[in-house]
């Protein structure tokens, strides 16, 4: 049996006295999209940040694409594409500069054509060389998805990618998720929009109060069942 692309066991994350994540277990397979659901403060974004190598786990064992996030963070960052829940853009850089930096650090050759295509798909082609500080919230979110996906990561982490995004951006994001799955990448999608989660994902994990309360197939996630898991 193949090793899961994301394997989280008994993860704890504490910020001082605050316990943001309290013993989460989670696994996600390559070629699958998993929805990470839960109310505000359930620990979704913190878990995502641990998987992206931004926040170290306080306790527990986390591997991403076969790399331990605590000991092999650089390898994790090479394997992951991460769209943070807020911001995620250097305010005085241009989209192209963000892409160039990301590509150069990952030693990508001939990335320009694919990057241009991705920007066009997200209707950001016209602003590729404009400073992102003046971008609207929706534009910033769309660019964050572009940045997360352009290097075709083996693990794609999308934290609230639909937040404030117009229907064209939503469709483009769903396409990115489908493309990632098709090439065998593992996708973890955090969102409050159940319908979109159902559309994009095959399975779902529900968090509450920093812990996992359910892991189920997306088809089982009816409105009532989801609501019951949240409360």
């Amino acid at each position: 049996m193949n090793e899961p692309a994301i394997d989280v066991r008994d993860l704890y994350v504490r910020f001082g006295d605050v316990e943001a994540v309290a013993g989460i277990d989670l696994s996600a397979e390559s070629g699958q999209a998993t929805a990470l659901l839960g109310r505000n403060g359930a620990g979704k974004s913190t878990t995502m940040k641990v998987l992206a190598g931004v926040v170290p786990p306080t306790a527990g064992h986390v591997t991403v694409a076969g790399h331990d996030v605590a000991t092999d963070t650089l390898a994790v960052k090479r394997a992951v594409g991460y769209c943070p829940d807020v911001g995620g853009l250097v305010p005085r850089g241009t989209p192209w500069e963000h892409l160039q930096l990301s590509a150069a650090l990952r030693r990508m050759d001939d990335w320009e054509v694919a990057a241009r295509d991705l920007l066009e798909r997200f209707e950001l082609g016209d602003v590729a060389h404009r400073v992102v500080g003046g971008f609207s919230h929706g534009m910033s979110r769309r660019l964050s998805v572009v940045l997360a996906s352009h290097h075709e990561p083996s693990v794609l982490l999308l934290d609230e990618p639909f937040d404030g995004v117009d229907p064209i951006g939503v469709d483009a994001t769903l396409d990115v998720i489908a493309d990632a799955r098709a090439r065998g990448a593992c996708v973890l999608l955090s969102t409050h929009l159940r319908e979109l989660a159902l559309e994009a994902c095959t399975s779902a994990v529900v968090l509450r109060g920093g812990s996992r309360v359910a892991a189920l197939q997306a088809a089982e996630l009816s409105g009532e069942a989801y609501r019951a898991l949240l409360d």
Partner: protein
Amino acid sequence: MLSWTDGARDTAHLLRFRARTVRRRGPAVAGFALVLALTALFATFPAHLDTTGEGQVADLLRQLIRGVEGNLPLVFTGVLMLAIGSAMSSGGGRELLSRSEAAVHPISPVTEHLGALALTPVNLAWLIQVWGLLTMTALVIAPERLVGAQIVVLAWVVAATALGQVVGWLVEGVRRTTHGVVIVRVVGGLIAVVFGLLHLAGLLRPMVDVLPTTWLVETMATDGWPLVTLLLLAVSVVAVWFGGAPAQWALSLPPREELRVESGVHEARHLPAPRSGSLELALMRRLDRGSVWRSVGMRRGLLVLGLGPGLVALVAGLQWSSVLLLPGLAASGAALLFGVNAWCLDGKGMIWRETLPIAPSTVFDARTLVLGECLAGVSGITITMALMRNGLPPLQIGVSVVLCWLVVVVQVLAISMSWSVRSPYGVDLSSPRATPAPHGAMAGYAGRLSLVTTMTGVLFAALAELPWPWVTVLVAAFFLSWSARRLVRARRRWLAPAERARIALTVAAV
């Protein structure tokens, strides 16, 4: 219609709100008490120095008093000029709430105006001016006349600040009109040229002598000081009241320069080809440089800090012993633009940057190098302009100047990076009025940086008098190794994943 009652009430609310957000109350109160104590010290202590005795100290004091006596009206005028320059460069003064925070609140232009005035004293340059003016006055005014004179000095500082604020808003208003940026730059350049020509023609000094500040200085040491004080307070009140209108005008216009920069287009460039260091380091340096030079506030601030002290050295013809103090002050000022919270350059983008597959040490090194460039550049301009005026100094002084410059740059760099790692803040630096840390923290940073660099400058000025250059080299080596140790400690702290995560989450405010 401007409502001063509501504006004043809202200003008080905002000040209370800001005061409640001060993290470390003990040091804040201690800092405030220290400022008051230093103000009292500068206002009184120099008057009690014995200038009649023998010895080097007494000679130096007599020399200092002779230099100050004729120049006090010029210094008074300088305070006004600096108040104007400060308000102009910061786009109307500091803001009580950042632009993004304030956007959702009904904050009136009067509140912005009063808030900017209230925050003026929380500023290194302003405090140094006040202390300098109080010290000079205490040196030359007879002790029995000192109280009245110092009250006039304080009233003058208040009036100059209020007048500077009026001009600051007017210039900001002009800057926000269609061709305003060009107009401000051209007019500013012309004024500088005119002043330069007047100075070269020897007309500047006679002009200063006929300014009201000469009368002010003459009268403050007489029984007429209460009248002067009342007059200055009346000027202050009128200026504060009058400033509301240009504030309303300026703030009703779109900030064109910032909007232009925020939506600026920068065509793609090839990857850097570093002559030394790694590609990763070169890439991060390029990104960080862009973050500095594409910010209106930082670009303007670095320019003013580079040219301001330099112009003083150029026009006033300062002695090398005084020039030695300038690089430290210029570097301190530059650090206060962003260096004391260096990670705030990335704003919310810090989380994305932290996902990049790059060694944390490279990220730290790049930020340190870019901050170092800014500090060295700004203080280097000051020294270059002093060189233009004074010519090449003798060997011993030259060694002291170069080593002092190096020491204060590394000193400020190490302190700034250390603070950046220890106490990060999530701030929005898109407005030139924004500061990289809360105002209370900025006051503490400013005080400590100015104290450290001034003391270092004074020490190197003293070393320059010694006949043994190797002593200066040894002292510099000690200072450099001390600062290097501090920098290494900050770097080590940054390399710890938990610390880095704390900084990233704080700066990105998530």
